[in-house]
């Protein structure tokens, strides 16, 4: 989808911001959360956990939109997100959105 300008009702919308909690020692390194996060917030870390796997780490601080997908797709109950705050929708967000999903 492509937006040409800031939608007129932009002030009625906001972007949720999530904070991630990763329980590193539970992770079995399946990478589901990393691959399927819609905002590519996560990355495999180089550190080893107790079991010898590489747990995910947050790369783009502040880009998690608290959608909870990583939380419901993790087979190990090793990651979840908590709503931290809401961010106002700016024309920059719209531009980034168009860039990411635009034709």
């Amino acid at each position, binding site marked *: 989808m492509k937006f040409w300008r800031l939608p007129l009702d932009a002030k009625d919308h906001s972007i949720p911001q999530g904070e991630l909690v990763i*329980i590193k*020692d*539970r992770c*079995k*390194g*399946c*990478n*589901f959360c990393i*691959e*399927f996060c819609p905002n590519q917030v996560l990355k495999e870390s180089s550190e080893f956990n107790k*079991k010898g*796997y590489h747990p995910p780490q947050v790369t783009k601080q502040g880009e998690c939109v608290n959608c909870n*997908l990583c*939380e*419901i*797709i*993790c*087979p*190990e*109950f*090793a990651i*979840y997100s908590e709503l931290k705050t809401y961010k106002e929708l700016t024309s920059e967000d719209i531009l980034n959105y168009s860039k990411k999903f635009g034709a």
Partner: protein
Amino acid sequence: MKIRHRTLVPFDPQSTTRLREEQHGLHPDDVYLKPGRIPHIWCPGCGLGVVLNTYINGLKMAGLPVDRTAVVSGIGCTGRVAGYLNMDTYHTTHGRAIPFATGLALVRPDLTVTVFSGDGDLFAIGGNHFIHAARRNINLKILCVNNFNYGMTGGQAAPTTPVAARTTTTPYGNFEHSFNLPFLAYASGAVYVARWTTFHARHLVTAIAESLTRKGFTFIEVIAPCPIGYGRPNKLGSGLDEMKFYRENSLVQNDADPREADIGLKGKIIVGKFIDQSRPTFDQVYEENILKKFTRSA
């Protein structure tokens, strides 16, 4: 030559207590899990953890309190869920989850009884129970994890193994026609029939919540990766590769004809909510036809 023997470490009876103290409660969904049972036994990349997770989220979405629910499972990797969920669960013998759950659902109509089991358990050894419970429209919620093989016993062929797929018992490729589970469920009389893959976690949560609120026999098939039993002999890669395969090859078709929903080794997988209808449940017709005859009018 000197032989050095390793000192034997006896089973640590404190390990469960320690796990419970160190690990339990770190995740908000831990209240739904029996203390000290996580990590579960499932392989890295296995889809079963995703189904367990989405089931818990489905319960939350349906707003069902855990003391009003029960989960019955059979034998297999999938059957292990009974040991992980912190609610009334029962791990039955192989193939007999439905008969046990039928008794439970009839005696305790106030409970929402889920049968959570594998494709082998429900459709090989337990196939007959499935069709008759569906025909009678017993108030059961069936959640079948289809990983196309018998995962637990070493990757043997199941009635769901697609034609040409290799398993330990079909080293030249399976030549038997496989069941199309949504069609089987629909033809047997299920009132709600859906299929999703573990990649469709969000749809799956909604479908589970929906099925929990329907009256009668509901059926959800969840296609899940089994990188060890099914992925390896068929060169499908890791669990993540199977998940990516689902992302690229699933066609969401709600209200699709279940007859068209066959699955091959490669090729498209039709997913969606296929059937959502209502018809009198076993309890209702029993009350209507039998119980009413014996209740004296005042």
